[in-house]
């Protein structure tokens, strides 16, 4: 929870709502980047094969055209892949989409084309330059120069790890950041789930006052996952806490379902009277 809160940033819309964006983790961004690199390399291989095949099929005269197509394709893949994908309404490359990330302007305003161009041109400094030093043949005379170069450029490559907002050099230069914007499904309302067994449970007010909103949310989580062992443990705990009489015929799931529903109803009613019970320690 603390980890998640540390990555949470306020995004206040013009309507005055805080959307509480969560920044992407460095690991998520690295994974997204690796996926993109894999796609680019794959596309490059396919393109090369197609060009060679075209050359073979159309004869020597197609040489210039095929060479031009290949060069342009290479350029587009290397320099424009990220830019073009981030200019789409989703503002994310396929790799980022897979991980539910998107690029956003730090100021909350629109993400402009120049910002996208700027943040991606910086990749030259962050990825390709260190790579050049890394792959440069390490002969004795050059080795030290290469190593120094690698260290120096490594600073840019690892920059996201050294600042609070996980900004890389491109993000700093363009005023952007990468946020987590996963698509959430609207899950079924637990309180609507009713197999008719609820009527058997009648909780007293004192029994419902044992818990607050925080526990309700934990209970919701438990019910959604419905892991048999956890359900049993939680049910036993609640029974003990509220002195629920033992009954060998009732199922743990039904009991928790019914208690969730009753607790939520109770908390909602109290909310109507302006009393929000944060957790079980919240006494009034």
């Amino acid at each position: 929870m603390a980890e998640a809160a540390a990555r949470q940033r306020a995004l206040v819309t013009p309507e005055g709502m805080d959307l509480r964006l969560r920044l992407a983790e460095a690991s998520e961004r690295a994974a997204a980047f690796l996926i993109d690199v894999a796609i680019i390399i794959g596309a490059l291989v396919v393109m090369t094969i197609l060009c060679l095949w075209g050359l073979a099929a159309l004869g020597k005269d197609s040489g210039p055209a095929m060479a031009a197509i290949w060069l342009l394709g290479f350029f587009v893949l290397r320099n424009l892949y990220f830019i073009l994908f981030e200019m789409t309404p989703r503002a994310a490359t396929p790799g980022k989409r897979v991980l539910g990330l998107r690029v956003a302007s730090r100021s909350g305003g629109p993400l402009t084309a120049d910002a996208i161009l700027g943040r991606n041109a910086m990749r030259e400094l962050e990825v390709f330059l260190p790579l050049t030093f890394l792959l440069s043949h390490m002969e004795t005379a050059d080795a030290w120069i290469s190593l120094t170069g690698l260290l120096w450029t490594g600073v840019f490559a690892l920059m996201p790890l050294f600042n609070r907002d996980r900004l890389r050099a491109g993000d700093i230069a363009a005023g952007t950041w990468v946020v987590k914007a996963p698509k959430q499904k609207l899950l079924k309302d637990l309180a609507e789930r009713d197999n008719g067994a609820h009527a058997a449970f009648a909780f007293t007010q004192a029994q419902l006052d044992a818990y607050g909103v925080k526990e309700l949310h934990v209970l919701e989580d438990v019910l959604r996952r419905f892991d048999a062992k956890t359900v049993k443990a939680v049910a036993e705990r609640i029974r003990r806490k509220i002195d629920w009489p033992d009954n060998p015929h009732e199922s743990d799931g039904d009991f928790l379902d019914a208690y969730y529903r009753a607790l939520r109803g109770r908390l909602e009613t109290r909310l109507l009277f302006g009393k929000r019970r944060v957790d079980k320690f919240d006494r009034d």
Partner: protein
Amino acid sequence: MAELRLKSSRFRAEREADWKRLENLLNRAEGGAARVLSDEDLIAIPVLYRSALSSLSVARATSLDQSVVDYLESLCARAYFFVYGSRARLIERIGRFFAHDWPAAAKACWRETLASAALTAGGVAVGMSLCFADSDWFRAFVPDDLAAGRGPAASAQALRATLFLNPHDQHQIQPWLSTLATFLFTHNAHVALMAFAFGFALCLPSALLMAYQGCMLGAFLAVFITHGLGVEAGGWLVIHGVTEISAIILAGAAGMRIGSTLAFPGERGRLEAVAAAGRTAATLMGGVLVMLFCAGLLEGIGRQLIQTTWIRYTIAAATGVMWLTYLYGPRPRRNGAAHG
């Protein structure tokens, strides 16, 4: 059963259809272009977005159903990016870029451009004078594969052959012109992007790159001049060089803009100042790529088809005047939209 429902369940049931509709529209808008949406849908999105926002605010305050809050937060964020993200049509964006943004960015970076140009010019002077003094310097400045035999040791005739096409060869060359232009463009664009990105490291690498490119250029020129081919080599170079070298100088300037702002952010916070400088510089970079595309055409096609030195110079002068007036010439104040 209905009367037994919780208030939060009723709240959800009443609004769920609207949320789903918004989600559906967003899915379609994000999947393809906004064009797949009808006008009616496009107008509906902001309305649905605001009602989802108010649902979220109610849900946060009252609803004890955590999944609804999570869902609405994600939905509202997506809608927010759609509603407040830039959805200007591509054509309009491009028009604005050429009519206003690019020249404005070039003007804003005039100091860096002068510095970048001075570094290049200095490099040319140094490269040239060193090579005049001792032709061995050539090898220090120009890598062997780039020199391709055009060293100080080459004969005047061999050097001449690199400036003009053999008339008997021409129709063999012509099919490859477009390929050559493409290669030159992609190569130069790459150098420019590098010059830009390196500026982030406090200008130094960009400055070095500019000076080094100048040295290389000076060394080449020195070789041709010592063989009595100065004028011809100048024509060979400037026909595309005016555009290409200007573009590289601007790219260096754009990089330096970021680097110098990072070092001296002025009165604003550093992050904010760098972000603003970065956007100006990136706009300029967009222009640089356009210039390099023109340079690639001039070099790959124009230079091969035009074999007369004075026409090459004329074209160079024309391109020079054109870029200068376009980028720095006075332009009518745009009314209304000028504040954007």
